[in-house]
């Protein structure tokens, strides 16, 4: 080999950052711990840039292996890293966005306890994420896959001693394990049939296989199983439930893990396995359908949430749905493109929201933020405001911003790509309208002055609310109308000033990362002009399957026009309901109370899951197993043993022997069944 890129160095740098902080961080001043936590990812990013700068000087895919990792019988897996166009994009996004968010965290976490631990774990997360995207085989990728989940679990739960945070962490972990059942079985099938985990080796054999048209085809089964894993990690239907709860974690964690990187791992994995999916049209259809349904389902929930982070969480779920739609439509390049722009704008949205939350000492309810800052947060935190505007325009698909390019590519590809489908295109377009609505709603409510209050200030003004009630009561009515908490919390009629003065703009260490991401969220889309981005990625997705050509259903210009119209419609509606005519929103709520309540309560999915899965299991454990197999025996025994002193031997002996009889009875029953089976029933 003429050139060694030493790819291993990139994850190892992040691991070093983790190790240093976890071992020594407690003893060092915060400044030192923070610098270590930022410098190592910075070094990793610099190395990633160096690797990118050498592009062209090595053969792609570039693979480096470091000895035998597992070598036992038929199983031989090296420590191997791979760099191709796809992993290069992921590498740059992960280290770049990761670095920016680390810097932001210096400011955001400045007053939190466990500072060094936070940076240690964030670095650990980057380590696993880099393992995931650089691995050259499925097994190492799975290690990274589980590792990021583990780091995310710790970061959600370990910073706040709140029951809800602990529960959210556990929920995320357990839900992901369910997805992993599918993923693991898929991996075993791959190993069984292709005798290895290496991408090169597996995909080479896959390429020799024909396209399958039955549900039972090997590649179809593998594709669906892997996708089940992806629905867990990337929060798709039906396993998305953990992501909204994961917002319990600190906001930079939400930005890095639950928006920009970890949750996109499922998309990366599906795109990486393009060779498999291209030959399994039914698996592709599943991916497309689940992606589209998730996109619209989550977007609709996002319409009415009050908590700004919850809005962003559902938005993330919805946007991930778009990425899967792209994969399902066999235009993986567009999916990865959206993955990248999403990392910019959604990461930024979280950072800006975090800055707003920070300014108001932890307030996450948009309507309460507005109440506390009656003349509009935008006046006090202009940088936060403007960056949030840029990100909102980007995600809403306002022409010219990054999100517009990538989302439009996906929608156009679904309508007239290799696997055209007008229905899913329509679903995606409607969801895009919803996206625009809920994002502008979040923008207007969080940053603009309260329109109802403005009416009160000039009593005869034209925007005077309906009826004669004073303004405070109207605000109340709108709140009660439930933009919309279920229970209306008693709130003071007068806005509360921020503790220690008016809300303030964040320090530069937080605003500069936001500005960087804002530039990317605004301009990042131009990289994809003339399909340059997709052409760059094309070699990875050239899997030897060429779909039949067909006439485009609609020109790209027409599709684009519809997308723009929908985005503007969402903007206009949000403007009408939340700035111009706030009372109209209350009326709309009263017109459709059932629908309103269904959406606000997230269609009661958590409750249904609880009733269908969690509670029966607990019931089974408590009633059936505990009462019958276990405690029916134990309760008596232990109570008796605890109560009666050892001197009253007679009674005790009776108790114990009673137990033993019933235990022996169980063993006897088992024995009879076993013998009966062996001799008679077999």
């Amino acid at each position, binding site marked *: 080999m003429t050139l060694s890129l030493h790819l291993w160095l990139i994850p190892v740098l992040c691991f070093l950052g983790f190790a240093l902080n976890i071992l020594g961080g407690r003893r060092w001043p915060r400044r030192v711990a923070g610098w270590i936590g930022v410098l190592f990812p910075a070094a990793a990013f610099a190395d990633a840039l160096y690797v990118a700068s050498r592009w062209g000087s090595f053969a792609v895919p570039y693979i480096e292996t470091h000895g035998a990792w597992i070598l036992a019988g038929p199983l031989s897996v090296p420590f191997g890293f791979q760099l191709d166009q796809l992993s290069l994009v992921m590498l740059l996004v992960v280290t770049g966005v990761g670095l920016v968010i680390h810097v932001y965290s210096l400011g955001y976490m400045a007053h939190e306890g466990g500072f060094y631990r936070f940076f240690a774990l964030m670095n650990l997360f980057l380590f696993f994420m880099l393992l995931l995207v650089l691995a050259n085989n499925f097994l190492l990728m799975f290690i990274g896959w589980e590792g990021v989940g583990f780091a995310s679990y710790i970061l959600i739960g*370990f910073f706040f*001693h709140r029951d809800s945070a602990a529960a959210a962490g556990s929920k995320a972990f357990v839900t992901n394990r369910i997805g992993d059942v599918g993923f693991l079985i898929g991996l075993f099938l791959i190993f069984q049939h292709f005798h290895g985990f290496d991408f090169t080796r597996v995909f080479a054999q896959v390429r020799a296989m024909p396209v399958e048209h039955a549900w039972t085809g090997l590649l179809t089964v593998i594709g669906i199983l892997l996708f089940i894993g992806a629905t867990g990690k990337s929060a798709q239907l039906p396993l998305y439930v953990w992501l909204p709860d994961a917002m319990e974690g600190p906001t930079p964690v939400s930005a890095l893990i639950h928006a920009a990187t970890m949750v996109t791992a499922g998309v990366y994995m599906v795109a990486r396995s393009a060779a498999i999916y291209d030959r399994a049209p039914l698996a592709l259809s599943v991916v497309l359908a689940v992606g589209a349904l998730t996109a619209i389902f989550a977007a609709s929930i996002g319409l009415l949430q009050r908590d700004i982070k919850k809005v962003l969480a559902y938005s993330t779920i919805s946007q991930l749905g778009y990425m899967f739609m792209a994969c399902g439509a066999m235009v993986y390049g567009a999916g990865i493109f959206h993955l990248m722009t999403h990392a910019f704008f959604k990461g930024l949205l979280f950072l800006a929201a975090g800055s707003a939350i920070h300014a108001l000492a932890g307030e996450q309810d948009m309507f309460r933020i507005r109440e506390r800052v009656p003349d509009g947060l935008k006046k006090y935190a202009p940088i936060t405001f403007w960056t949030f505007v840029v990100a909102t325009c980007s995600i809403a698909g306002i022409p010219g911003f990054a999100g517009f390019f990538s989302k439009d590519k996906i929608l156009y590809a679904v309508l007239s790509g290799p696997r055209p489908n007008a229905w899913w295109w329509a679903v995606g377009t409607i969801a895009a309208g919803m996206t625009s609505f809920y994002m502008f709603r979040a923008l207007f409510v969080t940053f603009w002055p309260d329109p109802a209050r403005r009416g009160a200030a000039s009593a005869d003004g034209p925007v005077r609310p309906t009826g004669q009630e004073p303004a405070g009561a109207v605000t109340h009515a709108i709140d009660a109308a439930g933009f919309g908490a279920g229970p209306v919390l008693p709130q003071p009629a007068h806005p509360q000033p921020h503790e220690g003065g008016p809300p303030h703009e964040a320090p530069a260490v937080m605003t500069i990362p936001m500005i960087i991401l804002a530039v990317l969220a605004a301009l990042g889309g131009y990289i994809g002009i003339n399909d340059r981005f997709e052409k760059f990625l094309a070699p990875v997705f050239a899997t030897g399957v060429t779909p039949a050509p067909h006439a485009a259903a609609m020109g790209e210009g027409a599709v684009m026009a519809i997308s723009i119209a929908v985005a503007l419609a969402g903007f206009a509606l949000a403007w009408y309901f939340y700035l111009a005519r706030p009372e109209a929103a209350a009326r709309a709520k009263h017109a459709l109370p059932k629908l309103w309540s269904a959406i606000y309560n997230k269609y009661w999915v958590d409750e249904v899951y609880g009733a269908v899965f969690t509670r029966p299991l607990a019931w089974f*454990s408590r009633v059936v197993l505990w009462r019958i197999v276990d405690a029916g025996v*134990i309760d008596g025994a232990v109570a008796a043993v605890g109560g009666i002193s050892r001197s009253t031997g007679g009674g005790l002996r009776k108790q114990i022997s009673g137990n033993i009889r019933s235990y022996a009875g169980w*063993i006897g029953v088992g024995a009879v069944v076993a013998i009966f089976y*062996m001799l008679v029933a*077999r």
Partner: protein
Amino acid sequence: MTSAATPLVPAVYYLRILPEIVLTVFGAVIMLIEGPARHVGRGRTTRWVALVGALTAFAAVWIQSRHPGYAFSHLFRVDGFTVFFGFLLTAIATVIILMAMDYLPQQHLDRGEFYALVLFGTVGMGFMAGATELILMFIALEISSISTYILAGYRRHAPKSTEASLKYLLLGSFATAFFLYGIALIYGATGTTQISAIARALAHPSAGAAVQTGQIVLLGAALMFIGLGFKVSAVPFQVWTPDVYEGAPAPVTAFMSAAPKAAAFAIFLRIFTVALAANSHAWFWLLWAAALLSMTVGNVAALLQNNFKRMLAYSSIAQAGYILVAFAALGADGVSAVMFYLAAYAAMNIGAFAVVSHFAHRDERYVDIRNYAGLGFRAPWPAFCLSVFLFSLIGVPLTGGFFGKVYIFRAALHSHLVALTIIGLLNSALAAYYYLRPVVAMYMREAPVLPALAPGAPAGNIEPPIPPTAMSGPIAVVLALCVAVVIWLGVFPGSVLAYALRSARHLLHG
């Protein structure tokens, strides 16, 4: 002429059972020291003797491994399989002795016979691992069982402990009777108690009596299955496990959950995959059902346990279920997966029990999971170790538990046990919930503030937090060792797996 040249018992035979000899000698020495000494804290000398004994036995396994072959008219055989279990069992004994050094003084139970019993029990288990003859297997099983019966009741003043011992003794004897009857029937059917001879006899049945002996063999297999199922706590023969694990002293529970179980699996594998291999179609579904039931019942019942030891007891039932999945997969893949998992399981389970044992305090007062609230900040290192063990039990990558499960389910799928694989993986997803509970308690809950009461008295429903406890040297060594093994098996599983695979081939192909 020949008798002069070749002695009746060649010296190499003694080398082949050297670990057992070493353990017996050290055990006997402990008893001799123990007898005359009458003062409290007598264990102080004997525990070092025991530790040296266990370590010497570990080294002796290495010498044993240099001399493969049969010993004592085909009663015992040294092969890769025997050696694998020999290393595992002596390592477990060493760790348990270290654990007891911390626990026994804390409980005011520091007497030497505890250590002797651990060593004698290990002798029995060592013979179990290498025995190639049913009678020796039975005797070895009894040697190990009797030691554990006594150890389970070692907290003589605690009713729960004596109760555990009595239950274990009575039910254990009941189950052993099945095993013994099974041996008798197999002998009746084949005319031999030699594993390889039984295998030959069953592979080529004499034409005339085929049907008749077939039924007897099947009955014998079922009976042995019941007896061994009891020893490895497979459902439906697991009923004793929660009570006994809860009542026995914590280090003994750790010992029972790892060593006798591993040894019982060794016998189980030798009998069923070698001697009864020809009848695998018959007993396969017994294994299949036991695997499924053990995983499911163990995990679901563990969900709501508050007592840490009881939770780990149910967890160990579930873990036995996973191991049975690999067993049901058969073949070298399955057997090696069983072996690898037993090693990983021993490290993570003993580690978890070591933490529980360390924090139990006098009379095992603090064994409720709620006692662990906030422990992560008051005792960071033990809490960290416990988290590693629990994550390994879940099967998170970079821990031994992960590769253990990977190998098990890979082998299962390879043998087309699709349903069992899916159920097993779903079970391991479910299990994450209860293994996380202690982690949540340690790191995500504050220790409750007790109302001012008499010190140590439980206040209503509030479980008192564990008071600060100094780490003793031995327990620190135990935790460090267990964490090291768990991580090592999780990062570099290859060498152990390769060794297990070779040993499994030895076992299956002679």
